[in-house]
């Protein structure tokens, strides 16, 4: 639980330069060797600069300037294998309000060296990376490897340090885990996975899970996952979705999930999700079962009409129903139109409301314009506000294929911000360079 955590932000800040150096050193040695071997180079990158003009809840003007830099270089062999380096980072500078000493910040989002084999879907990654393997959806400073084996078996393993940046807590010293799956391409896949997260004096996390994907015929698709907490000895979550498309134009989807709070919210790193027996707000006895159905119809290409219903059943709080529909028309590059409306009918004032959304975006030549309106109407006013809404105007201009400049202005009213204006200016620049016959993925 939260009390298990120890202060660790300082240690992580000390580790970051070390990680960056290790990744860069490994990358440069591999990349320098590539000119002799490689047949196909791809270098891509992007810079996204955002200037926000907004106001804090304390009515202080805030003008944060953000810069996001992404860089990727890949050297591919003729046999299909490839070695690549991926780096992504951001930084923020507060231009106006400097009332605190926290007016700059930044982070390495990812930075890893990757080898992809020509056969067996072999992948080996080293560095800061995002891992998705069964129960693991983690950002880790460490190593990751996966490969296909005989008899339709695939296996993956990872080990490293969990990347948790909460100021006062860390998420354990050491994380490791893996997943083994067996399947037949196009027909089914069933996997078992586990992760352990350890620190010096506590069992932080121990989770196991099964996941499956079944696609017996083209029209039917079942995906799902169950995860188990072996510290609390209970199932954390079951989540399954069944999709059926009886004809090409119609898809019906049913989903089911069950979450046990005691097991799911064990050992989080923020009080926002802490259980009440650990100083938080969530009742550990609570369990929620959500079951829903949705249907989508595509009468003509690019137009989707959908209806959806979901019931939330709580052991303690009662139940809530969410029902509504949406309409979307989208062409690849020129036009997006959409509308949606839903009713939430729950047991408290905050969970009894209507929500609506309308949006339109049109591109003409190098210019695009759009509006986006989102509205929530509560049955009973919250802090004196019955209708919470945000209206956003969007504009953009494409100077070249690589350089885009855009902006938006938002007017909103809500229980927290009465008649608020916000604005944002965005400059996006992307570049890529290719040597050889094949291209690459843009970082745009």
């Amino acid at each position, binding site marked *: 639980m939260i009390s298990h955590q120890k202060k660790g932000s300082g240690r992580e800040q000390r580790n970051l330069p070390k990680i960056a150096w290790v990744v860069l050193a490994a990358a440069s040695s591999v990349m320098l060797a590539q000119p002799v071997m490689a047949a196909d180079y791809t270098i891509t990158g992007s810079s996204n600069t*955002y200037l926000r003009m907004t106001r804090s809840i304390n009515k202080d003007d805030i003008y*944060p300037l953000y810069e996001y830099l992404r860089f990727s270089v890949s050297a591919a062999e003729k046999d299909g294998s490839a070695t690549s380096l991926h780096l992504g980072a951001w930084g923020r500078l507060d231009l106006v309000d400097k009332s605190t000493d926290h007016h700059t910040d930044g982070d390495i989002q990812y930075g890893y060296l990757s080898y992809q084999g020509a056969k067996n879907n072999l992948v080996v990654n080293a560095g800061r990376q995002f891992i998705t393997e069964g129960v693991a959806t983690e950002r880790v400073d460490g190593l990751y490897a996966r490969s296909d*084996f*005989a008899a339709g078996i695939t296996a993956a393993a990872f080990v490293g340090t969990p990347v948790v940046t909460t100021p006062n807590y860390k998420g354990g010293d050491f994380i490791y885990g893996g997943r083994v799956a067996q399947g037949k391409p196009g027909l089914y896949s069933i996997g078992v996975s586990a992760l352990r997260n350890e620190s010096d004096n506590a069992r932080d996390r121990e989770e196991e899970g099964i996941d499956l994907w079944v696609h017996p015929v083209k029209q039917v698709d079942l995906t799902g996952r169950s995860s188990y907490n072996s510290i609390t000895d209970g199932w954390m979550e079951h989540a399954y979705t069944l999709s059926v498309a009886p004809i090409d134009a119609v898809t019906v989807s049913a989903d089911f999930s069950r979450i046990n709070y005691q097991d799911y*919210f064990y050992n989080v*790193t923020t009080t926002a999700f802490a259980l009440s027996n650990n100083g938080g707000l969530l009742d550990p006895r609570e369990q929620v079962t959500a079951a829903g159905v949705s249907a989508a119809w595509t009468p003509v290409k690019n137009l989707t009409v959908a209806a959806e219903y979901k019931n939330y059943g709580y052991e303690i709080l009662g139940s809530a129903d969410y029902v509504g529909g949406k309409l979307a028309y989208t062409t690849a590059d020129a036009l997006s139109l959409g509308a949606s409306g839903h009713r939430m009918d729950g047991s408290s004032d905050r969970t009894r409301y209507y929500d609506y959304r309308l949006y339109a975006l049109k591109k003409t030549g190098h210019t695009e314009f759009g509006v986006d309106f989102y509205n929530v109407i509560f049955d009973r006013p919250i802090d004196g506000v019955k209708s919470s809404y945000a209206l956003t105007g969007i504009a953009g201009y494409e100077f070249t294929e690589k350089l885009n400049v855009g902006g938006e202005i938002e007017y909103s009213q809500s229980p927290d911000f009465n008649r608020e204006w916000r604005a944002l200016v965005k400059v996006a620049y992307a570049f890529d360079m290719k040597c050889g016959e094949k291209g690459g993925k*843009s970082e745009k």
Partner: protein
Amino acid sequence: MKSKVLIMLMVPLMALLLVACANTKSGARIHPEAVTGTPNCNECHTDAYAAMNHQAVDFFKKHSVFASNARMACASCHAESFCSDCHAHKEELKPSVKYTQQVERTLPHRGDYMSQHRIDGKINPASCAKCHARTNNERCLTCHK
């Protein structure tokens, strides 16, 4: 002790043998056709990739399963930065702020999210916790001391 050494020798050998016997071809490193907008994978694929139709009404719910099962298929179109747009561990800008103009995408936290997050948090806190329970929760701590 002898059995431990034997196991340590046999496991890698067995793994190498199984890898050698697998002999599958790796998925495409780069998608052969440029894809724009929200693709309907059914238009070209009749195999397992057809299930990854991004226009399906439930694709957003299922994308995490595909990320586990077929991460390389995702990577043939999406760079790592695409995942980081939403799944970052210390992110200050919401995806809906970074990509306001992508109105058709299912991006979380649209509109006034300060008041809306209390509603979502009450209805299904697990949906918030997937991203914010262990990472990317610095903003939570400004109020949830």
